[in-house]
Protein backbone atom coordinates (compact mmCIF):
# COMPACT_ATOMS: atom_id res chain seq x y z
CA UNK A 1 0.00 0.00 0.00
CA UNK A 2 1.16 3.52 -0.64
CA UNK A 3 2.08 5.88 2.17
CA UNK A 4 -1.04 7.91 1.49
CA UNK A 5 -3.28 4.85 1.73
CA UNK A 6 -1.52 3.79 4.94
CA UNK A 7 -2.00 7.29 6.32
CA UNK A 8 -5.74 7.26 5.66
CA UNK A 9 -6.04 3.78 7.21
CA UNK A 10 -4.12 4.90 10.27
CA UNK A 11 -6.60 7.75 10.79
CA UNK A 12 -9.49 5.31 10.39
CA UNK A 13 -7.99 2.94 12.96
CA UNK A 14 -7.29 5.84 15.32
CA UNK A 15 -3.57 5.16 15.58
CA UNK A 16 -2.04 8.58 16.24
CA UNK A 17 1.58 7.40 16.42
CA UNK A 18 1.25 5.68 13.04
CA UNK A 19 -0.42 8.74 11.55
CA UNK A 20 2.49 10.89 12.69
CA UNK A 21 4.95 8.36 11.23
CA UNK A 22 3.18 8.14 7.85
CA UNK A 23 2.71 11.90 7.63
CA UNK A 24 6.45 12.39 8.18
CA UNK A 25 7.21 9.65 5.67
CA UNK A 26 4.92 11.29 3.12
CA UNK A 27 6.83 14.54 3.52
CA UNK A 28 10.09 12.66 3.10
CA UNK A 29 8.69 11.23 -0.14
CA UNK A 30 8.06 14.87 -1.17
CA UNK A 31 4.35 14.32 -1.61
CA UNK A 32 2.32 17.52 -1.94
CA UNK A 33 1.08 18.85 1.42
CA UNK A 34 -2.43 19.14 0.05
CA UNK A 35 -2.41 15.45 -0.93
CA UNK A 36 -1.30 14.46 2.57
CA UNK A 37 -3.89 16.79 4.12
CA UNK A 38 -6.67 15.38 1.96
CA UNK A 39 -5.72 11.87 3.00
CA UNK A 40 -6.15 12.83 6.66
CA UNK A 41 -9.51 14.38 5.88
CA UNK A 42 -10.58 11.34 3.86
CA UNK A 43 -9.83 9.08 6.82
CA UNK A 44 -11.85 11.25 9.19
CA UNK A 45 -14.67 11.54 6.69
CA UNK A 46 -14.77 7.75 6.36
CA UNK A 47 -15.19 7.38 10.12
CA UNK A 48 -17.79 10.14 10.13
CA UNK A 49 -19.90 8.31 7.56
CA UNK A 50 -19.64 5.05 9.48
CA UNK A 51 -20.62 6.82 12.69
CA UNK A 52 -23.66 8.32 11.00
CA UNK A 53 -24.61 4.80 9.85
CA UNK A 54 -24.18 3.41 13.40
CA UNK A 55 -21.31 1.17 12.27
CA UNK A 56 -18.84 2.67 14.73
CA UNK A 57 -19.29 4.48 18.03
CA UNK A 58 -18.11 7.61 19.78
CA UNK A 59 -14.69 6.25 20.87
CA UNK A 60 -13.76 5.46 17.24
CA UNK A 61 -14.64 9.03 16.27
CA UNK A 62 -12.60 10.43 19.16
CA UNK A 63 -9.61 8.25 18.33
CA UNK A 64 -9.77 9.08 14.62
CA UNK A 65 -9.99 12.80 15.44
CA UNK A 66 -6.96 12.62 17.71
CA UNK A 67 -5.08 10.68 15.06
CA UNK A 68 -6.03 13.19 12.37
CA UNK A 69 -4.77 16.01 14.58
CA UNK A 70 -1.49 14.18 15.08
CA UNK A 71 -1.08 14.31 11.32
CA UNK A 72 -2.19 17.94 11.08
CA UNK A 73 0.44 18.88 13.66
CA UNK A 74 3.12 17.41 11.38
CA UNK A 75 1.82 19.47 8.47
CA UNK A 76 1.14 22.67 10.42
CA UNK A 77 4.48 24.38 9.67
CA UNK A 78 3.92 23.80 5.96
CA UNK A 79 0.27 24.68 5.70
CA UNK A 80 -0.64 27.93 3.98
CA UNK A 81 -3.95 29.00 2.60
CA UNK A 82 -2.87 28.09 -0.89
CA UNK A 83 -1.92 24.53 -0.07
CA UNK A 84 -5.38 23.18 0.63
CA UNK A 85 -8.78 23.73 -0.76
CA UNK A 86 -11.07 24.04 2.16
CA UNK A 87 -14.80 24.41 2.10
CA UNK A 88 -14.81 27.42 4.37
CA UNK A 89 -14.74 28.34 8.04
CA UNK A 90 -17.27 27.10 10.57
CA UNK A 91 -17.62 28.53 14.07
CA UNK A 92 -19.02 26.33 16.82
CA UNK A 93 -19.86 26.85 20.47
CA UNK A 94 -22.20 25.91 23.30
CA UNK A 95 -24.40 28.83 24.29
CA UNK A 96 -24.14 30.89 27.45
CA UNK A 97 -25.09 29.11 30.66
CA UNK A 98 -24.56 25.67 29.14
CA UNK A 99 -21.42 23.64 29.78
CA UNK A 100 -22.24 20.50 27.82
CA UNK A 101 -19.62 19.83 25.18
CA UNK A 102 -19.46 16.28 23.93
CA UNK A 103 -22.09 16.79 21.23
CA UNK A 104 -20.42 20.01 20.12
CA UNK A 105 -17.03 18.28 20.06
CA UNK A 106 -18.34 15.44 17.92
CA UNK A 107 -19.81 17.93 15.43
CA UNK A 108 -16.50 19.77 15.41
CA UNK A 109 -14.56 16.59 14.58
CA UNK A 110 -16.97 15.50 11.87
CA UNK A 111 -17.16 18.94 10.24
CA UNK A 112 -13.34 19.15 10.24
CA UNK A 113 -13.34 15.72 8.67
CA UNK A 114 -15.58 17.06 5.95
CA UNK A 115 -12.91 19.59 4.99
CA UNK A 116 -13.88 22.76 6.87
CA UNK A 117 -11.75 25.00 9.05
CA UNK A 118 -13.47 24.86 12.43
CA UNK A 119 -13.01 27.43 15.16
CA UNK A 120 -14.13 26.13 18.54
CA UNK A 121 -15.45 28.90 20.78
CA UNK A 122 -15.89 26.47 23.65
CA UNK A 123 -18.69 26.27 26.16
CA UNK A 124 -20.77 28.87 28.00
CA UNK A 125 -20.17 31.35 25.17
CA UNK A 126 -21.78 34.77 25.72
CA UNK A 127 -23.73 36.34 22.86
CA UNK A 128 -21.24 39.13 22.32
CA UNK A 129 -18.45 36.56 21.99
CA UNK A 130 -20.33 34.79 19.21
CA UNK A 131 -20.78 38.15 17.43
CA UNK A 132 -17.12 39.14 17.80
CA UNK A 133 -16.07 35.75 16.43
CA UNK A 134 -18.36 36.10 13.40
CA UNK A 135 -16.84 39.55 12.73
CA UNK A 136 -13.30 38.23 13.14
CA UNK A 137 -13.44 34.92 11.29
CA UNK A 138 -16.14 35.68 8.69
CA UNK A 139 -17.37 32.08 8.79
CA UNK A 140 -19.77 30.53 6.34
CA UNK A 141 -21.59 28.78 9.17
CA UNK A 142 -22.18 29.38 12.86
CA UNK A 143 -23.15 26.22 14.77
CA UNK A 144 -24.68 26.58 18.22
CA UNK A 145 -25.34 23.81 20.74
CA UNK A 146 -27.61 23.79 23.81
CA UNK A 147 -28.58 20.84 25.93
CA UNK A 148 -31.08 22.49 28.25
CA UNK A 149 -34.44 24.16 27.63
CA UNK A 150 -33.25 26.92 29.96
CA UNK A 151 -30.26 27.78 27.75
CA UNK A 152 -31.95 27.44 24.34
CA UNK A 153 -33.21 31.04 24.35
CA UNK A 154 -29.59 32.19 24.04
CA UNK A 155 -29.66 30.87 20.46
CA UNK A 156 -32.43 33.34 19.58
CA UNK A 157 -30.47 36.14 21.27
CA UNK A 158 -27.44 35.40 19.11
CA UNK A 159 -29.52 35.41 15.92
CA UNK A 160 -31.14 38.72 16.93
CA UNK A 161 -27.72 40.18 17.74
CA UNK A 162 -26.42 39.13 14.31
CA UNK A 163 -29.34 40.99 12.70
CA UNK A 164 -28.73 44.11 14.79
CA UNK A 165 -25.09 44.15 13.73
CA UNK A 166 -25.94 43.71 10.06
CA UNK A 167 -24.28 40.27 10.01
CA UNK A 168 -27.27 37.99 9.69
CA UNK A 169 -27.15 37.60 5.91
CA UNK A 170 -23.40 36.98 6.00
CA UNK A 171 -23.50 33.71 7.92
CA UNK A 172 -25.72 30.62 8.01
CA UNK A 173 -26.81 29.49 11.48
CA UNK A 174 -27.32 25.84 12.35
CA UNK A 175 -28.48 24.74 15.80
CA UNK A 176 -28.50 21.44 17.66
CA UNK A 177 -28.79 19.77 21.06
CA UNK A 178 -31.25 17.59 22.95
CA UNK A 179 -34.12 20.07 23.47
CA UNK A 180 -33.75 21.63 20.01
CA UNK A 181 -35.88 20.67 17.02
CA UNK A 182 -36.81 21.91 13.56
CA UNK A 183 -39.82 23.76 14.92
CA UNK A 184 -37.61 25.75 17.28
CA UNK A 185 -35.10 26.42 14.51
CA UNK A 186 -37.89 27.81 12.32
CA UNK A 187 -39.26 29.83 15.20
CA UNK A 188 -36.01 31.66 15.87
CA UNK A 189 -34.97 32.06 12.25
CA UNK A 190 -32.06 29.60 12.16
CA UNK A 191 -31.05 28.26 8.75
CA UNK A 192 -30.98 24.69 9.88
CA UNK A 193 -31.29 22.14 12.67
CA UNK A 194 -29.23 18.97 13.06
CA UNK A 195 -30.41 16.18 15.37
CA UNK A 196 -26.97 14.60 15.67
CA UNK A 197 -23.31 15.03 14.69
CA UNK A 198 -23.56 12.95 11.53
CA UNK A 199 -26.45 14.96 10.17
CA UNK A 200 -24.78 18.20 11.24
CA UNK A 201 -22.18 17.62 8.54
CA UNK A 202 -24.90 17.05 5.97
CA UNK A 203 -26.60 20.27 7.06
CA UNK A 204 -23.36 22.28 6.88
CA UNK A 205 -22.71 20.92 3.39
CA UNK A 206 -26.27 21.71 2.38
CA UNK A 207 -26.12 25.36 3.45
CA UNK A 208 -22.59 25.93 2.15
CA UNK A 209 -22.37 23.83 -0.98
CA UNK A 210 -26.03 23.37 -1.70
CA UNK A 211 -25.55 19.59 -1.51
Amino acid at each position, binding site marked *: MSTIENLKDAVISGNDSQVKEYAEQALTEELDVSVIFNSLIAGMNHIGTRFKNNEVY*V*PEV*LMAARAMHAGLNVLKPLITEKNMEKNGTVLIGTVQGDLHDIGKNLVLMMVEGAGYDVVDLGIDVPTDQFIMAVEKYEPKVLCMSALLTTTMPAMAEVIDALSEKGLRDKVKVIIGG*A*PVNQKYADQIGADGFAPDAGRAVDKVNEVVLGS
Partner: protein
Amino acid sequence: MELTSRERILKAFALEEPDRVPCSPWGFPAWFDKLGKDYSEKIIKNTDVLVAVRTGSKAETWIGGELANIHRRETTEDGNIREIIETPQGPLYATIKPTGDHVDWYIEHFFKDETDVEKFLSIPYKPLKIPMDDFHKWDKFIGDEGLVLGEISNPFYCSAYYFGTEENLLQTYVNKDMIIRLLDAVIERVCDVIKNASKQGVKAWRIIGAEYASTRVLPPKLFREFIVKYEKKIVDTIHECGGIAFMHMHDKMYDLIDDILEIGPDAIDPLEAPPGGDIDLATAKKRMGSQICLVGNIDEMLILSTADKNEVERLSKDCIRAAGYGGGYILGGTASGLFNPQTMDNFLVMAEVCKKHGKYPLKL
Protein backbone atom coordinates in the same frame (compact mmCIF):
# COMPACT_ATOMS: atom_id res chain seq x y z
CA MET B 1 -61.18 2.20 47.77
CA GLU B 2 -58.71 4.95 46.93
CA LEU B 3 -55.13 4.06 47.71
CA THR B 4 -52.50 6.44 48.96
CA SER B 5 -49.92 7.52 46.39
CA ARG B 6 -47.33 5.37 48.09
CA GLU B 7 -49.56 2.29 47.98
CA ARG B 8 -50.41 2.99 44.34
CA ILE B 9 -46.75 3.18 43.33
CA LEU B 10 -45.80 0.06 45.29
CA LYS B 11 -48.60 -1.96 43.66
CA ALA B 12 -47.41 -0.86 40.24
CA PHE B 13 -43.84 -1.89 41.14
CA ALA B 14 -45.22 -5.29 42.20
CA LEU B 15 -46.78 -5.62 38.70
CA GLU B 16 -50.26 -5.49 40.18
CA GLU B 17 -53.21 -3.30 39.27
CA PRO B 18 -53.62 -0.48 41.80
CA ASP B 19 -56.83 1.59 41.95
CA ARG B 20 -55.60 3.60 38.97
CA VAL B 21 -52.46 4.15 36.91
CA PRO B 22 -50.07 6.26 39.01
CA CYS B 23 -48.75 9.53 37.59
CA SER B 24 -45.25 10.13 38.89
CA PRO B 25 -43.06 13.10 38.13
CA TRP B 26 -39.54 12.47 39.34
CA GLY B 27 -37.91 14.92 41.73
CA PHE B 28 -35.00 15.33 44.10
CA PRO B 29 -34.41 17.77 46.97
CA ALA B 30 -32.94 20.67 44.97
CA TRP B 31 -35.71 20.29 42.37
CA PHE B 32 -38.37 21.12 44.99
CA ASP B 33 -36.41 24.24 46.01
CA LYS B 34 -36.41 25.44 42.42
CA LEU B 35 -40.10 24.63 41.93
CA GLY B 36 -41.09 26.87 44.82
CA LYS B 37 -43.61 26.18 47.56
CA ASP B 38 -46.72 26.64 45.44
CA TYR B 39 -45.85 24.16 42.72
CA SER B 40 -44.21 21.74 45.15
CA GLU B 41 -47.41 21.46 47.15
CA LYS B 42 -49.53 21.05 44.01
CA ILE B 43 -47.27 18.36 42.59
CA ILE B 44 -47.12 16.43 45.86
CA LYS B 45 -50.88 16.68 46.45
CA ASN B 46 -52.07 15.88 42.94
CA THR B 47 -49.55 13.35 41.64
CA ASP B 48 -47.83 10.23 42.94
CA VAL B 49 -44.41 11.78 43.11
CA LEU B 50 -41.16 9.78 43.15
CA VAL B 51 -38.33 11.48 45.04
CA ALA B 52 -34.72 10.32 44.88
CA VAL B 53 -32.41 11.24 47.76
CA ARG B 54 -28.71 10.36 47.79
CA THR B 55 -27.54 8.49 50.89
CA GLY B 56 -24.15 10.11 50.82
CA SER B 57 -22.51 12.29 48.18
CA LYS B 58 -20.82 10.76 45.17
CA ALA B 59 -17.39 11.20 46.78
CA GLU B 60 -18.65 9.66 50.02
CA THR B 61 -20.01 6.61 48.20
CA TRP B 62 -16.98 6.03 46.00
CA ILE B 63 -14.22 6.85 48.48
CA GLY B 64 -15.94 5.86 51.72
CA GLY B 65 -14.31 6.11 55.11
CA GLU B 66 -13.26 9.32 56.81
CA LEU B 67 -13.92 11.63 53.91
CA ALA B 68 -13.37 14.88 55.77
CA ASN B 69 -9.69 14.03 56.11
CA ILE B 70 -9.04 13.68 52.42
CA HIS B 71 -11.64 15.59 50.42
CA ARG B 72 -12.09 19.36 50.36
CA ARG B 73 -13.22 22.25 48.19
CA GLU B 74 -11.67 25.71 47.94
CA THR B 75 -12.63 28.83 46.02
CA THR B 76 -10.04 29.95 43.47
CA GLU B 77 -9.03 33.50 42.58
CA ASP B 78 -11.09 33.41 39.38
CA GLY B 79 -14.24 32.38 41.26
CA ASN B 80 -14.17 28.68 40.38
CA ILE B 81 -14.12 25.84 42.91
CA ARG B 82 -11.04 23.67 43.28
CA GLU B 83 -11.79 20.17 44.52
CA ILE B 84 -8.98 18.12 46.02
CA ILE B 85 -8.74 14.48 47.05
CA GLU B 86 -5.63 13.57 49.03
CA THR B 87 -4.27 10.09 48.31
CA PRO B 88 -1.22 8.16 49.55
CA GLN B 89 0.26 8.62 46.05
CA GLY B 90 -0.38 12.35 45.84
CA PRO B 91 -3.38 14.65 45.43
CA LEU B 92 -6.06 14.58 42.73
CA TYR B 93 -7.41 17.90 41.46
CA ALA B 94 -10.61 18.95 39.74
CA THR B 95 -12.17 22.34 38.96
CA ILE B 96 -15.85 23.23 39.07
CA LYS B 97 -17.39 26.28 37.44
CA PRO B 98 -20.21 27.57 39.67
CA THR B 99 -23.40 28.29 37.74
CA GLY B 100 -25.97 28.53 40.53
CA ASP B 101 -27.34 25.21 39.31
CA HIS B 102 -27.72 22.10 41.44
CA VAL B 103 -25.26 20.29 39.14
CA ASP B 104 -21.48 20.45 39.61
CA TRP B 105 -20.09 21.59 36.24
CA TYR B 106 -16.59 20.21 35.99
CA ILE B 107 -14.20 22.06 33.68
CA GLU B 108 -11.27 19.96 34.88
CA HIS B 109 -11.81 16.34 35.93
CA PHE B 110 -9.99 14.35 38.59
CA PHE B 111 -8.77 11.61 36.30
CA LYS B 112 -6.50 12.66 33.45
CA ASP B 113 -4.88 9.27 32.93
CA GLU B 114 -4.19 5.87 34.50
CA THR B 115 -1.87 7.25 37.19
CA ASP B 116 -4.79 9.23 38.62
CA VAL B 117 -6.91 6.08 38.79
CA GLU B 118 -4.07 4.33 40.63
CA LYS B 119 -3.86 7.26 43.05
CA PHE B 120 -7.59 6.97 43.70
CA LEU B 121 -7.40 3.21 44.25
CA SER B 122 -4.50 3.70 46.69
CA ILE B 123 -6.83 5.40 49.19
CA PRO B 124 -7.44 2.85 51.96
CA TYR B 125 -11.14 2.02 51.93
CA LYS B 126 -13.43 1.42 54.82
CA PRO B 127 -17.22 1.48 54.65
CA LEU B 128 -18.83 4.87 54.96
CA LYS B 129 -20.96 5.82 57.94
CA ILE B 130 -24.05 6.65 55.88
CA PRO B 131 -25.47 10.17 56.40
CA MET B 132 -29.19 9.37 56.65
CA ASP B 133 -30.67 12.66 57.91
CA ASP B 134 -31.62 13.96 54.49
CA PHE B 135 -33.29 10.68 53.49
CA HIS B 136 -35.33 10.44 56.69
CA LYS B 137 -36.34 14.10 56.46
CA TRP B 138 -37.72 13.64 52.93
CA ASP B 139 -39.28 10.26 53.71
CA LYS B 140 -41.16 11.86 56.57
CA PHE B 141 -42.12 14.95 54.53
CA ILE B 142 -43.46 13.02 51.54
CA GLY B 143 -45.02 10.30 53.69
CA ASP B 144 -47.82 8.50 51.88
CA GLU B 145 -48.09 11.18 49.19
CA GLY B 146 -45.36 9.58 47.12
CA LEU B 147 -42.34 7.35 47.45
CA VAL B 148 -38.84 8.36 48.50
CA LEU B 149 -36.04 6.24 47.10
CA GLY B 150 -32.37 6.14 47.95
CA GLU B 151 -30.31 7.11 44.92
CA ILE B 152 -27.17 5.15 44.09
CA SER B 153 -24.95 5.26 41.04
CA ASN B 154 -23.46 2.28 39.26
CA PRO B 155 -19.64 2.10 39.15
CA PHE B 156 -19.42 3.19 35.51
CA TYR B 157 -20.92 6.52 36.57
CA CYS B 158 -17.89 6.98 38.82
CA SER B 159 -15.57 6.41 35.87
CA ALA B 160 -17.54 8.84 33.68
CA TYR B 161 -17.77 11.42 36.47
CA TYR B 162 -14.10 11.42 37.34
CA PHE B 163 -12.76 11.16 33.76
CA GLY B 164 -15.40 13.31 32.13
CA THR B 165 -17.74 11.78 29.55
CA GLU B 166 -15.52 12.17 26.51
CA GLU B 167 -12.27 10.94 28.04
CA ASN B 168 -14.11 8.09 29.75
CA LEU B 169 -15.44 6.87 26.42
CA LEU B 170 -11.94 7.00 24.97
CA GLN B 171 -10.49 5.10 27.93
CA THR B 172 -13.04 2.30 27.48
CA TYR B 173 -11.25 1.51 24.21
CA VAL B 174 -7.64 2.34 24.97
CA ASN B 175 -7.45 1.15 28.58
CA LYS B 176 -10.35 -1.18 29.26
CA ASP B 177 -8.50 -3.18 31.94
CA MET B 178 -7.99 -0.02 33.98
CA ILE B 179 -11.70 0.81 33.76
CA ILE B 180 -12.60 -2.71 34.89
CA ARG B 181 -10.19 -2.43 37.87
CA LEU B 182 -11.90 0.77 38.89
CA LEU B 183 -15.38 -0.72 38.51
CA ASP B 184 -14.39 -3.84 40.48
CA ALA B 185 -13.25 -1.65 43.38
CA VAL B 186 -16.20 0.74 43.35
CA ILE B 187 -18.93 -1.96 43.15
CA GLU B 188 -17.98 -3.23 46.61
CA ARG B 189 -18.32 0.28 48.02
CA VAL B 190 -21.68 0.78 46.32
CA CYS B 191 -23.00 -2.49 47.74
CA ASP B 192 -21.76 -1.54 51.22
CA VAL B 193 -23.80 1.69 51.03
CA ILE B 194 -26.89 -0.25 49.96
CA LYS B 195 -26.54 -2.80 52.78
CA ASN B 196 -25.92 -0.19 55.47
CA ALA B 197 -28.59 2.27 54.32
CA SER B 198 -31.12 -0.52 53.90
CA LYS B 199 -30.67 -1.41 57.57
CA GLN B 200 -31.44 2.21 58.37
CA GLY B 201 -34.71 2.41 56.48
CA VAL B 202 -34.16 2.69 52.72
CA LYS B 203 -36.67 0.32 51.12
CA ALA B 204 -36.37 1.32 47.46
CA TRP B 205 -33.36 2.32 45.38
CA ARG B 206 -32.96 4.30 42.17
CA ILE B 207 -29.86 3.16 40.28
CA ILE B 208 -28.37 5.74 37.91
CA GLY B 209 -25.57 5.77 35.35
CA ALA B 210 -26.46 3.11 32.75
CA GLU B 211 -26.84 5.69 29.97
CA TYR B 212 -23.10 6.36 30.04
CA ALA B 213 -22.83 3.10 28.10
CA SER B 214 -25.93 3.43 25.90
CA THR B 215 -25.77 2.30 22.27
CA ARG B 216 -25.67 5.93 21.20
CA VAL B 217 -22.07 6.03 22.45
CA LEU B 218 -20.77 2.48 22.93
CA PRO B 219 -21.35 -0.92 21.29
CA PRO B 220 -23.76 -3.32 23.04
CA LYS B 221 -20.95 -5.65 24.08
CA LEU B 222 -19.45 -2.91 26.25
CA PHE B 223 -22.83 -2.34 27.90
CA ARG B 224 -22.57 -5.96 29.00
CA GLU B 225 -19.03 -5.52 30.29
CA PHE B 226 -19.42 -2.17 32.04
CA ILE B 227 -23.05 -2.14 33.11
CA VAL B 228 -24.78 -5.53 33.19
CA LYS B 229 -22.29 -7.30 35.46
CA TYR B 230 -22.23 -4.48 38.01
CA GLU B 231 -25.80 -3.33 37.90
CA LYS B 232 -26.96 -6.94 38.35
CA LYS B 233 -24.86 -7.12 41.50
CA ILE B 234 -26.46 -3.89 42.73
CA VAL B 235 -29.96 -5.23 42.03
CA ASP B 236 -29.17 -8.57 43.69
CA THR B 237 -27.83 -6.74 46.76
CA ILE B 238 -30.95 -4.58 46.95
CA HIS B 239 -33.15 -7.67 46.72
CA GLU B 240 -31.12 -9.48 49.38
CA CYS B 241 -31.83 -6.50 51.64
CA GLY B 242 -35.55 -6.84 50.89
CA GLY B 243 -35.67 -3.70 48.78
CA ILE B 244 -37.03 -2.55 45.43
CA ALA B 245 -34.58 -1.86 42.59
CA PHE B 246 -35.53 0.94 40.20
CA MET B 247 -33.22 1.24 37.22
CA HIS B 248 -32.81 4.61 35.54
CA MET B 249 -31.46 4.86 32.01
CA HIS B 250 -31.76 7.72 29.51
CA ASP B 251 -31.08 7.44 25.80
CA LYS B 252 -31.26 4.49 23.43
CA MET B 253 -31.87 1.10 25.00
CA TYR B 254 -33.97 -0.99 22.60
CA ASP B 255 -31.05 -3.23 21.62
CA LEU B 256 -30.24 -3.71 25.31
CA ILE B 257 -33.63 -4.98 26.52
CA ASP B 258 -32.40 -8.56 26.96
CA ASP B 259 -29.48 -7.23 29.03
CA ILE B 260 -31.86 -5.18 31.15
CA LEU B 261 -34.00 -8.25 31.75
CA GLU B 262 -30.85 -10.03 32.87
CA ILE B 263 -30.04 -7.22 35.31
CA GLY B 264 -33.50 -7.86 36.76
CA PRO B 265 -34.72 -4.52 38.19
CA ASP B 266 -38.25 -4.15 39.52
CA ALA B 267 -38.88 -0.92 37.62
CA ILE B 268 -37.26 1.16 34.90
CA ASP B 269 -37.51 4.73 33.64
CA PRO B 270 -37.76 6.92 31.64
CA LEU B 271 -38.10 4.81 28.48
CA GLU B 272 -37.39 7.69 26.15
CA ALA B 273 -39.07 7.69 22.75
CA PRO B 274 -37.27 9.07 19.69
CA PRO B 275 -35.43 11.37 19.20
CA GLY B 276 -33.93 11.18 22.72
CA GLY B 277 -34.29 7.42 22.93
CA ASP B 278 -35.65 4.58 20.82
CA ILE B 279 -38.45 3.08 22.87
CA ASP B 280 -41.97 2.37 21.69
CA LEU B 281 -43.96 1.87 24.89
CA ALA B 282 -46.22 -0.91 23.56
CA THR B 283 -43.20 -2.89 22.40
CA ALA B 284 -41.46 -2.32 25.73
CA LYS B 285 -44.56 -3.62 27.51
CA LYS B 286 -44.55 -6.80 25.42
CA ARG B 287 -40.82 -7.38 25.91
CA MET B 288 -40.40 -6.34 29.56
CA GLY B 289 -43.83 -5.79 31.08
CA SER B 290 -44.23 -9.22 32.64
CA GLN B 291 -41.04 -8.71 34.68
CA ILE B 292 -40.43 -4.99 35.08
CA CYS B 293 -42.70 -2.06 35.96
CA LEU B 294 -42.43 0.55 33.20
CA VAL B 295 -42.23 4.26 34.14
CA GLY B 296 -42.31 7.14 31.66
CA ASN B 297 -42.36 7.95 28.56
CA ILE B 298 -43.55 11.47 27.74
CA ASP B 299 -40.65 13.73 26.81
CA GLU B 300 -40.22 16.62 29.22
CA MET B 301 -37.92 18.82 27.19
CA LEU B 302 -39.54 18.64 23.76
CA ILE B 303 -43.16 17.99 24.75
CA LEU B 304 -44.17 18.75 28.33
CA SER B 305 -42.37 22.11 28.35
CA THR B 306 -44.27 23.34 25.28
CA ALA B 307 -47.35 21.21 24.50
CA ASP B 308 -50.91 22.34 25.15
CA LYS B 309 -53.38 20.52 27.40
CA ASN B 310 -55.09 18.65 24.58
CA GLU B 311 -51.83 17.23 23.27
CA VAL B 312 -50.74 16.13 26.75
CA GLU B 313 -54.09 14.47 27.37
CA ARG B 314 -53.85 12.61 24.07
CA LEU B 315 -50.30 11.40 24.74
CA SER B 316 -51.17 10.35 28.28
CA LYS B 317 -54.07 8.24 27.07
CA ASP B 318 -51.82 6.69 24.38
CA CYS B 319 -49.30 5.71 27.06
CA ILE B 320 -51.96 4.20 29.32
CA ARG B 321 -53.36 2.23 26.39
CA ALA B 322 -49.88 1.03 25.41
CA ALA B 323 -48.62 -0.05 28.82
CA GLY B 324 -51.30 0.22 31.50
CA TYR B 325 -53.17 -3.04 31.06
CA GLY B 326 -52.51 -5.58 33.78
CA GLY B 327 -50.81 -3.01 36.01
CA GLY B 328 -47.05 -2.53 36.15
CA TYR B 329 -47.09 0.91 34.53
CA ILE B 330 -46.56 4.39 35.93
CA LEU B 331 -47.28 7.40 33.68
CA GLY B 332 -44.31 9.73 33.81
CA GLY B 333 -41.95 12.05 32.02
CA THR B 334 -38.31 11.66 31.10
CA ALA B 335 -36.70 12.73 34.39
CA SER B 336 -35.11 15.87 32.98
CA GLY B 337 -34.68 17.44 36.40
CA LEU B 338 -35.93 20.75 34.94
CA PHE B 339 -38.78 22.71 36.48
CA ASN B 340 -40.32 24.83 33.71
CA PRO B 341 -43.79 25.96 34.92
CA GLN B 342 -45.51 24.62 31.81
CA THR B 343 -43.92 21.23 32.42
CA MET B 344 -45.36 21.23 35.92
CA ASP B 345 -48.80 22.29 34.69
CA ASN B 346 -48.69 19.44 32.21
CA PHE B 347 -47.82 16.92 34.92
CA LEU B 348 -51.01 18.02 36.65
CA VAL B 349 -52.88 17.42 33.37
CA MET B 350 -51.36 13.92 33.21
CA ALA B 351 -52.48 13.24 36.78
CA GLU B 352 -56.04 14.25 35.86
CA VAL B 353 -55.99 11.85 32.92
CA CYS B 354 -54.98 9.04 35.26
CA LYS B 355 -57.85 9.93 37.61
CA LYS B 356 -60.43 10.09 34.79
CA HIS B 357 -59.20 7.40 32.42
CA GLY B 358 -56.63 5.32 34.32
CA LYS B 359 -58.88 3.53 36.81
CA TYR B 360 -58.64 -0.25 36.81
CA PRO B 361 -60.03 -2.20 35.08
CA LEU B 362 -59.02 0.09 32.23
CA LYS B 363 -61.66 1.10 29.74
CA LEU B 364 -59.47 3.18 27.41
